[in-house]
């Protein structure tokens, strides 16, 4: 229980910090928009082409955005050594990870939901009735990106060339999320949409496996 209450307090802190400046969210949203527009120049964005390539480029844009968005989540704790204070404040260091993961998932999900209608309009695809399925896919995909990304953000924050290192470590590790979420989204974008439950199961499995690994090894990542 202490873990959850600690994590909830830290999550509140993360959300307050972000909504005071809204720097991370606004930058990420604009970045995704730019990536989507730039991608549209690489193929003819008619409806059929969009159904084939759209989900892939959408998830690529989310992945690139996440690799930038996750960068500051531990870097800003280094400025005044607030990470040391956080470690002293909580009984279980996993609470710090849990709060950061929830905050990153929330910010990523918000970006995705704001970009979805823009994407649908620009690429002439409609999601309408498939919104619950899309939401589930976005939630599981964003959670997977956040779990792995938060762990790797701690690693890259302690290395040289950290801005380049995080995407380098993150993108190959997220291959399963990219493959599966793209396939599930393609299914939902078809004229006769269908839900790939096997893909949903795989994404949930990925999230559970890496959440467990982080729970087991997270405290070593935060060692001084």
């Amino acid at each position, binding site marked *: 229980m202490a873990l959850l209450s600690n994590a909830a307090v830290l999550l509140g802190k993360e959300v307050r910090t972000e909504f005071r400046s809204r720097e991370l969210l606004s930058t990420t949203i604009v970045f995704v928009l730019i990536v989507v527009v730039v991608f549209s120049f690489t193929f003819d964005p008619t409806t059929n082409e969009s159904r084939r390539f759209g989900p892939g480029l959408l998830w690529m844009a989310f992945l690139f955005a996440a690799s930038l968005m996750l960068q500051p989540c531990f870097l800003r704790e280094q400025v005044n050594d607030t990470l040391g204070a956080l470690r002293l404040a909580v009984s279980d260091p996993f609470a710090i990870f849990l709060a950061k993961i929830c905050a990153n998932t929330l910010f990523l999900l918000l970006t995705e939901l704001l970009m979805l209608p823009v994407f649908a309009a620009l690429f002439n695809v409609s999601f309408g009735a498939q919104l619950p399925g899309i939401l589930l896919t976005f939630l599981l995909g964003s959670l997977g990106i956040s779990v*792995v990304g938060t*762990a*790797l953000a701690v*690693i890259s924050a*302690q*290395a*040289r*060339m950290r801005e380049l*290192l995080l995407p*380098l*470590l993150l993108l*190959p*590790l997220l*291959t*399963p999320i990219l*493959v*599966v979420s793209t*396939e599930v989204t393609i299914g939902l974008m078809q004229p006769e949409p269908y839900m790939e439950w*096997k*893909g949903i199961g*795989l994404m949930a*499995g*990925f999230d559970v*496996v*890496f959440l467990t*690994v982080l729970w087991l*090894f997270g405290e*070593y*990542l935060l*060692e001084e």
Partner: protein
Amino acid sequence: MMKRVLFGVVAIGLVACAAYASFYIAPEERTMGAIQKIFYFHASTAWAGETTFFVCFLANLLYIWKRQPQFDWLGVTCAEVGVACITVVLITGPIWAKPVWGIWWTWDARLTSTFVLWILYICYLLLRTLVDEPDRRALLSALFGVFAFIDVPIVFGAIRWWRTQHPAPVIMGGPGSGLEPTMKAVFFFNVAVMHVLAAFLIMERYSLEKTKHDVELLQHQAEAR
């Protein structure tokens, strides 16, 4: 020193024997012909590479648990030898695929997961060059190594669900699969030889890593005086 030289000579001699067995003892495959001979080298190197990465994973776990530098040296050593093995696999694979499938590469489950495995361990080695403090470098790379090793089966599962072209496993592949007995014997001999070669390379690279550590220690002591 003498033992190491002897081990090296034996390992290289065994590789020559394995090549002889593959070309002259194993019968020629009916449909693929001579190009199938690459299978003995390709698949056995892949097995040796995967074993090496598994040892790297164990060394990473042991480092996190025990914090002894020996496990860090073993980790980096196995990662380097594993990357070398998988590089060979990724080069011999397309050479075999082009005449048989008509293409150099296909994004199927085993090819893609091997490629991702290779990239992940290159990132592991890259990460090590970007962290200056030795204990921190050892811990962070060990943790990344654990993440990387766990990710590979999931990559395989994800791509297998999505699409696959690689032939069904002929070794331990279930009913209807399997190799002709001589081919099987030659293949397993090759697997053993590649493991011996990998063990030799690991031992040599490990002693190099140990020497590097000893030199760093002496440098620190000299600077302190």
